[in-house]
């Protein structure tokens, strides 16, 4: 049991930043995203922990479901208030600093993407998911997931020409 806890602690320490990044796709602040990750991981732990395979994909899927459930359960007023407060106080960034270019610009460019494209980009690049599992999560054909990824890359290239020129 102790060894099991240590293994999961190590797993969370390694994969936690990826999970929080993915959760930020729906959350307005880092603390919201961490709450989503916590709830999603508890769901995974209690219901799916014994399933075979690498847990990352299942935890990411659990995050998606928790985030969508939360969005449905909050009424508009609460969301508006939360958004206002979160925007006012949350200055945390999505990415660590990069030596070659501004990750703040990258974050802005990613935030400007349509939500489905943004999600594919996050899952593919930082969630290490293949297109088949991304398509399953989004409940779309694999071709659609690939297209969304390509559109996202093209949009990023357009928006980040100056940032990448020096990279």
């Amino acid at each position, binding site marked *: 049991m102790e060894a099991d806890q240590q293994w999961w602690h190590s797993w969370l320490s390694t994969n936690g930043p990826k999970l929080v*990044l993915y959760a930020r796709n729906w959350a307005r602040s*880092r603390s919201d995203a*961490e709450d989503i990750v916590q709830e999603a991981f508890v769901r995974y732990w209690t219901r799916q922990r014994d399933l075979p395979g690498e847990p990352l994909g299942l935890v990411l899927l659990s995050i998606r479901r928790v985030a969508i459930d939360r969005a449905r359960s909050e009424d508009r007023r609460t969301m508006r208030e939360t958004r206002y407060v979160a925007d006012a106080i949350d200055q945390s*960034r999505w990415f*660590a600093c*990069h030596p070659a270019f501004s990750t703040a610009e*990258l974050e802005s460019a990613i935030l400007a993407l349509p939500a489905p494209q943004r999600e594919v980009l996050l899952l593919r690049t930082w969630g290490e998911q293949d297109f088949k599992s991304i398509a399953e999560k989004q409940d779309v054909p694999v071709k659609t997931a690939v297209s969304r990824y390509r559109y996202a890359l093209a949009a990023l290239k357009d928006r980040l020409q100056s940032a*990448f020129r020096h990279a």
Partner: protein
Amino acid sequence: MPDESLERLLASVQPASMSAGLPDRILQACTDAAKRRRRAPRLLRWVALPAAMAAGVTVAWTVGQKEAARPLPKHTSSAGTPVVVVKQVLAERPVGLLLLADGRCLHVSERKVMVRTETSSAEPNGPILLQQTGLRELLVTSSPFL
């Protein structure tokens, strides 16, 4: 810039670090959740199963509602009677009701388990009237709740 270069560049960007205490917080939440869930299975394993078996009902597996779709072990009892599986846990409480796959009910309390031997017409989550007729009431001496 080719897509491959952009992909490599993006992959070199690390997500921001999370709060330092998050792994501990998550694992503590998991432990708390496990404690909350443990009571019902223990009740089923130590109270419902021996009582059901003593009443001539072989229960192969007891699960929560959402886990009921799992493949169930196929057994027959030593007497050759078919196994009855628990289909649904109606209430995960010390006093609970188990609806068996064949329609019968197990009414589980901390001190006794009653098996309704005729087909139940009870509705899930509704009050179930367990008539004395057709019931076998058993004291479970091995129950940790006694």
